[in-house]
């Protein structure tokens, strides 16, 4: 029973999921031209997409089939990839190369959800 629990726990830990990644503009010394924000949560996706794929991973039908085929014969196909499925925009207030102040909303800068594709 303990061994089964450990296996389940390890499997859960290795599942495809969103991890923290904070991009700090101060660390790359960009704060002299990016006024706001001082940094942002970009996040990243990492983990396994093993069969059976949980519902919350929002896998495509293709990913489910690919995972199943991989389970049958791993030499035929790799596992589906853990990738961002929902991305969010990040507004930035910055100075351009002509020192004009610009407010722009940059699309697809941060990960909101990860999934198997």
């Amino acid at each position, binding site marked *: 029973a303990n061994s089964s629990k450990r296996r389940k726990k390890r499997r859960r830990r290795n599942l495809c999921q969103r991890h923290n990644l904070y991009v700090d503009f101060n660390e*790359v010394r960009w704060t002299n031209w990016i006024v706001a*924000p001082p940094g942002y949560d970009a996040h990243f996706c990492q983990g396994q997409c093993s069969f059976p794929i949980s519902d919350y991973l929002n896998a495509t039908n293709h990913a489910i089939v690919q995972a199943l085929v991989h389970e049958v014969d791993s030499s035929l196909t790799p596992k589906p990839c853990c990738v961002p499925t929902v991305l969010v925009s990040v507004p930035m207030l910055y100075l351009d190369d002509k020192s004009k102040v610009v407010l722009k909303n940059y699309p697809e800068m941060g990960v909101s959800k990860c999934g198997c594709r």
Partner: protein
Amino acid sequence: MSSGVLPKVGRDSLIRQAAKYTGDAREEEDAIVNEYEKSLLNMFSLKRRPTPGKDFQVPRIMQHLYKAHMGDYYEHEPKIMRTWETGFDLPADEITSRANTARSYHHEVIFERQLFGSVSPSRFFDGACHCFVVRAAELLLHREAVWHHVTSGSGHMHRLNIYEIIKMPRSDDFGSKFAGSKPQPITRLLDTRLVDSRNSTWERFDVSQATSRWSQGPHDANHGLIVEVVQEDRQTPPQGAARRHIRLKRDVHSDIPDKEWVHLRPLLLAYSHDGKDTTLLRRSKRSSRKRDAP
């Protein structure tokens, strides 16, 4: 390195990684790192890394726009001031839903002198980027309440006229032909408004039609805008203390410090869209920010 985007540590790390693929060819490593930098700059629609001066001030209106766009999410912005009120209403949702970029332009006196000499219409816009579509533009003028000059009748009422310059007089018109009288540019009235000089606020004028013509027309279509302020009862420019109500230019004897002037001077806000799927709508209004129901 001064024009590079990546700091030295990051650059060295990339070069080390690139070396695994390119052997010892230093030129190839540099090319790969330069390619990284180029793609980062492209993301910001920049050609080189901006290098603003130390004393550069961001107009409060732009800070206000950012704060409004962030909604409740701006709490952790140390550079954004929160204790002031700009007296500036946010642009209508109709504008922000059609744009994902707001760009601010200050009036540049040096351009005015170079281009127009003794004729002094204002030039606010210094060229449009072809990849952006201008969706809307507003001219913002700050009005400061003037109390002590108030007279009876309508003496405190000022009229603001905004003109677009359609055609400038040719340079030879400045010669003998018009000797004694200044040649006038051909203008079109864009907007006019009666304002009370006893109030402080920002006046916003929709100049979208003019800026659209500038960005879509030939390169020399942009001759700028003229702002005229007259007293309603006399139809003459305000005199004395009343001149301070709407400041279009910095007064040599002004009591406004340099750091404050940047927040009060006339500003052109151009709203554009680069075709990517975002808008400047306030975050709290965007359904995509709401959590999905389980």
